[in-house]
């Protein structure tokens, strides 16, 4: 029965068909189909063109350094020696730090908002979090330099060094600007996207799950852990990956707080450098061809890393929604 249009629906179709062209003229349908198809093809074309242009622009560097570009540590414009490793390292480490900080915070906030918070508190908190997303990157950077970093340098980092100083992660001199400062800034910047996606995913957990768990005598914490979080696990992972995609490309604020030193250091207090930052920093004044080509190749590396991360995220999100809808029906 539900498969067939009800009589009322039928009549509304006939009524509205009077304003459509005469039956048989399928031109608008076909035109729309092609238009929509072309629009979506354009996206593919755009990505392809960006990739091709970057590849084309980095020919000289690819030819000169080959694959060793990816694991060379030296970046010396004076000697025309270029390698991407410190930047790949810096990008991945700062982004991972950001994820490690932002995902627990974001998921906890989302849990609070969907499961625990009183109804009248939810909307204001959501609004404030989403407002974070509207703050321009350079403002975060300035706030980082003038407010966050002095505080980190004088308090948090000193405390970390004092209590966890036996780990190589928290050794060495404290400058303030550092890999860790960058991670914290990026974490704040990706918090809105992680939180709002997590919230959507937690909301998509069917109530049946919760009720079933309560019926088995679970406490509230057990319900959250067994029925909600484990159910939404893959989706939350997808949210983290999407946040990571954002984190990888973040440029301006990171450039202002990471210290911009192409080194690979064990300590999180040491300055680092990211792919996006070095491109932003050095592109305008790059005069030699090999230099410019190497910067293009860094762009290519960044694009590939970002695309890979996004593909993984898509696959995970798709499998998550697939399984969820299966359980709901």
């Amino acid at each position: 029965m539900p498969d067939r249009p009800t009589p009322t629906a039928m009549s509304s179709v006939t009524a509205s068909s009077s304003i459509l062209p005469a039956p048989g003229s399928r031109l608008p349908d076909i035109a729309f189909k092609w238009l929509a198809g072309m629009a979506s093809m354009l996206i593919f074309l755009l990505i392809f063109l960006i990739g091709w242009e970057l590849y084309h622009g980095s020919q000289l560097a690819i030819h000169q350094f080959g694959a060793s570009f990816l694991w060379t540590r030296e970046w010396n414009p004076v000697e025309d020696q270029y390698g991407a490793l410190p930047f790949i390292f810096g990008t991945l480490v700062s982004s991972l730090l950001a994820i490690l900080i932002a995902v627990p915070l974001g998921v906890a906030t989302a849990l609070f908002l969907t499961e625990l918070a009183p109804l009248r508190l939810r909307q204001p908190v959501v609004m404030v979090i989403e407002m974070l997303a509207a703050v321009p990157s350079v403002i975060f950077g300035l706030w980082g330099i003038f407010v966050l970093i002095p505080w980190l340098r004088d308090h948090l980092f000193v405390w970390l060094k004092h209590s966890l100083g036996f780990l190589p992660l928290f050794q060495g001199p404290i400058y303030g600007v550092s890999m860790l400062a960058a991670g914290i800034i990026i974490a704040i910047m990706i918090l809105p996207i992680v939180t709002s996606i997590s919230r959507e995913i937690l909301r998509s957990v069917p109530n049946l799950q919760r009720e079933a768990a309560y019926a088995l005598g679970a406490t509230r914490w057990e319900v959250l852990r067994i029925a909600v979080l484990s159910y939404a696990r893959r989706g939350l992972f997808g949210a983290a990956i999407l946040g990571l995609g954002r984190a990888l490309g973040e440029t301006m604020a990171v450039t202002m707080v990471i210290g911009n030193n192409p080194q690979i250091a064990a300590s999180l207090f040491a300055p680092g450098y990211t792919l996006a930052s070095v491109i932003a920093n050095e592109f305008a004044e790059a005069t030699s061809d090999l230099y410019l080509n190497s910067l293009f190749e860094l762009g290519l590396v960044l694009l590939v890393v970002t695309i890979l991360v996004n593909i993984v995220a898509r696959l995970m999100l798709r499998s998550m929604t697939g399984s969820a809808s299966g359980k709901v029906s």
Partner: protein
Amino acid sequence: MKKTLALCALAAFSVTAASAQMLINGAGATFPQPLYTKWFDAYQKVDPSVRFNYQGIGSGGGQKQILAETVDFGASDGPMSDENLAKATHKLLHLPTVAGAVAVSYNVEGNPPLNLDGPTLAGIFLGKITKWNDPAIAGQNPGAKLPDIDIVVVHRSDGSGTSFIFTDYLSQVSEDWKAKVGKGTAVSWPVGLGGKGNPGVAGQIKQTPGAIGYVELAYAHQNKLPFASMKNAAGVYIAPTVESVTDALANAKIPDDFRFSMVNSPGAKAYPIAGATWLLVYADQKDHDKGEKLVQFLKWAYSDGEKFAPDLDYAPLPDAVLQRAVERVQTIKY
């Protein structure tokens, strides 16, 4: 049909715009941009029939654009390399406009006035001198109270003409620096933190106790940062000022093609860490009208324009150099 109409409208619009005012495009260095902006603005009153459009995309970009002939003039904080200049299809002129000082600023408790010489500065930036009370620094500053704290080196993270001038100077005064690092708009810094742009470096010096770094003089003034007096080639400690930079220019050896470095200039009153900035213009202008307007502007810039320089912390060219530059402008054919 709509498309044709739109095209017609567009064509009509661009024709009226072109007949009303000639547009001369330039691109390049950001260091002289405040001055150039001032020039173009003031020149509007001198000759309203021409309008200048300048994009501060960096010296590298400026060189690329003028080589590709997508702009009418380029601007660069460093002279073009032989390799890049060889890419020009016809003769490209370097025209120096003004010079600027790079100040060595620091953040030490009490901010005592400091004297430094080249080798000490190189030692600090090489990471060999790591404490503020190091004898190399204390020896030159007998009265100053220097703390026993680590020196935090701050340098530019973005490629810049300021870095070029600074590393050019260090290469001149320290063999060690020349061998290990060299000069360039971006180099492989042995130690230190990178700040983005002059504001980034100035901010980091201000924020970090024990920091030392280099910024354009104007930024040191704006941020009320102290700056060191540098020992020049004549052995005198000189503070960066508009006058001491002009003096450095007057004593610098300037070859016929104007591609010169003025760091460590001889002359008792010359400040050693300074550099000029250039406009890049083709000796044969393709477009007669544009070429004529450009030459008129350049003549104006060298006569009236130079007067705007000191207020913006740029050093105007000394008379002898000015004379030579004007003569070069007069050779431009259009």
